[in-house]
């Protein structure tokens, strides 16, 4: 039977896990400048198979800038980004994004379900409106983040942790294969952090890739498969066990690693080499 690509179930079309498949994400020689002053230099890395990737570095290292530049939200001075072997512009529907929580106005006149529905807007494209299918999906995503019953709350009435979970639910509604998340654990309670990490692990197990800007060094080793150390330049990229070392972290943070973090790192990686 001759089955055309359009008739194939979406599951098969989007399956990107076979060995012959192109890398999930390939960033080549990316340089970003802000008013002629470079903030990111020659970033080069490739995520070859689905993974939970952490981006770690000190404040002002350009972590958020890096994911914004990859997503094409900032002008780049040089470099290319390929997603599943194609320019990002052509693969937008397969890429999800969770901006920082503070980047939006939580007094905006909008209810929780409407925010989650926004996850479906990319697939709908211009003009088409969300219908019952999309609503059903949005409600499922809310339930998956443990937010049942909050559908018609105005978003400003939620706690910080709930707001972050709404953002995660919206990302789930995007049904992407590659996600970029900007500090999804910032300012959330321990229960929410746990719930979010659990969902991220589930996404990875479903063959998706999640790239997360993360600020808490203590939870890095047990949560992320791959680690990207950034401080304006790429310090290291690789499996967490190879990259999360006292030497590389010190190189990333320079003298700016706080005593407590130093101690935490020391506890995780063992005694520092003299």
């Amino acid at each position, binding site marked *: 039977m001759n089955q055309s690509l359009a008739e194939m179930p979406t599951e098969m079309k989007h399956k990107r896990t076979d060995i012959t498949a192109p890398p999930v994400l390939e960033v080549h020689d990316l340089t970003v400048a802000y008013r002629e002053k470079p903030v990111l230099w020659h970033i080069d890395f490739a995520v070859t198979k689905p993974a939970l990737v952490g981006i770690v570095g000190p404040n002002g290292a350009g972590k958020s800038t890096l994911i*914004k530049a990859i997503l094409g939200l900032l002008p780049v001075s040089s470099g290319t980004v390929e997603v599943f072997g194609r320019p990002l512009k052509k693969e937008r529907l397969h890429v999800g*994004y969770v901006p920082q929580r503070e980047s939006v106005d939580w007094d905006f*006149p909008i209810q929780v379900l409407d925010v989650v529905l*926004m996850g479906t*807007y990319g697939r*709908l494209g211009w003009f088409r409106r969300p219908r019952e299918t999309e609503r059903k999906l949005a409600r499922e995503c809310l339930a998956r983040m443990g937010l049942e019953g909050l559908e018609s709350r105005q978003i400003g009435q939620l706690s910080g942790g709930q707001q972050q979970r709404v953002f995660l639910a919206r990302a789930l509604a995007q049904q992407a294969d590659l996600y970029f998340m900007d500090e999804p654990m910032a300012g959330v309670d321990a229960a929410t952090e746990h719930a979010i990490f659990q969902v991220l692990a589930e996404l990875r197990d479903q063959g998706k890739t999640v790239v997360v800007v993360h600020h808490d060094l203590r939870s890095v080793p047990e949560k992320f498969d791959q680690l990207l150390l950034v401080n304006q330049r790429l310090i290291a990229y690789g499996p967490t066990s190879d990259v999360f070392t006292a030497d590389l972290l010190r190189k990333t943070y320079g003298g700016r690693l706080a005593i407590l973090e130093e101690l935490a790192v020391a506890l995780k990686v063992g005694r520092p080499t003299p």
Partner: protein
Amino acid sequence: MLHSLLSTSPAGSAWAIALWTIVIGCLCAIPASLVGSFLVLRRMSLLGDAISHAVLPGVAIAFLISGEISGVPIFIGAILTAILTAFLTRTVAASGVVNEQAGLGVVFTSLFAIGVLLISRAAQNIDLDPGCVLYGAIEFVPLETVVLGSFELPRTAIPLGFTALLTIGFILAFFKELKITSFDAPLAESMGLSPRRMDFFLLLLTSFITVLSFEAVGSILVIVLLVAPACTALHLTDRLEIALPLAVLFGCLSSVLGYSGALSTNTSVAGMIAVASGFLFLISWIFAPKHGRFANLLRRFRLRLQIATDDLLAVIYRREESGRLLMNHGESVVISNGLLGWLTKNRAVRKGWLDSEVLATESRLQLTPKGREMAQSIVRGHRLWESFLHRDFQLAQDHLHEPAEIAEHFLGPDLQRELSDQLNTPGTDPHGQSIP
């Protein structure tokens, strides 16, 4: 001005003029309040302000070239300067010398000043009143009519009606895109729904509205129609879908109220429309059910009354617990005096918590069984909280009472149970008093 205008018109047409003036006002207000809602939400309301000022030189130059006071050249001149304003503002802001707000301030005031100079210079030769450009002349707009089929209507009503329809159509067609680009522009952009394209459309519509409302309400007063009805509506609802029709309603209401106000005081209609929309905003600012000042005050007062009642019950409970018949001085100062004290006691009696017979003698106040139950829960919350602070935060004994005095009012049965479980059901608090 308005009275003499109406009295010189034939009796039958005075009504028609009045009606048309209101309709013209509404036709300005409908698109302005819709587009204005998005400008407010996108924190671009200053851009509306800027455009309405900055179109003036465009209008003046187009007028000097074409010699016509209205029509296509003026329109094109205005739209071009509006786009120039937005472009210049972005350039000034992007150069990094000043921020966007300051950039706007510099660009639009300079352009506006150039416009005023050009117009006052032109006004020496021909009949162009600078006041008219700034404040409009809505009173005279219905006098200049055209015949459309068998229907006679003011000439200005046609482009204004067209803009209103265009705006409504635009918002219906792009509602989803407007919503996401206003709420979360980076996400929209990552999806390929360009926020900049939406900005551009909104900018274009704003300049359309500004230019066409020009004759009616003038370049300055149109700012009020862009901002005030939107703010009024956004105060009253948490849903964009409701805020938009509400904004339209308030815009039209401003037109009606403005006209009647001008009629009864014999002043400028456009001025009165602006005053009316400001007045509607003031009302919603004070009386809005959720976010209004009045509702806020009421909520705060209710909470104060509840806290004062809790304190009263707890103090009597402590006295009874110690077996004393009279309250000591330390206890009686906790009870509020004056109006709050009176309201507190009344509330406690009304709720059946306080025995009304000995109400007059404060030191002998008696709890009813129901009141004792209530008071017990408050004291229990207080002492559990003290134990929690003592154990988990190692606060010293003399630092425990004050935080617990606040927390006791907010510890419901669920939280009390959880606290008690965590503390392994303690019998006494850190001061050695038993936890009821």
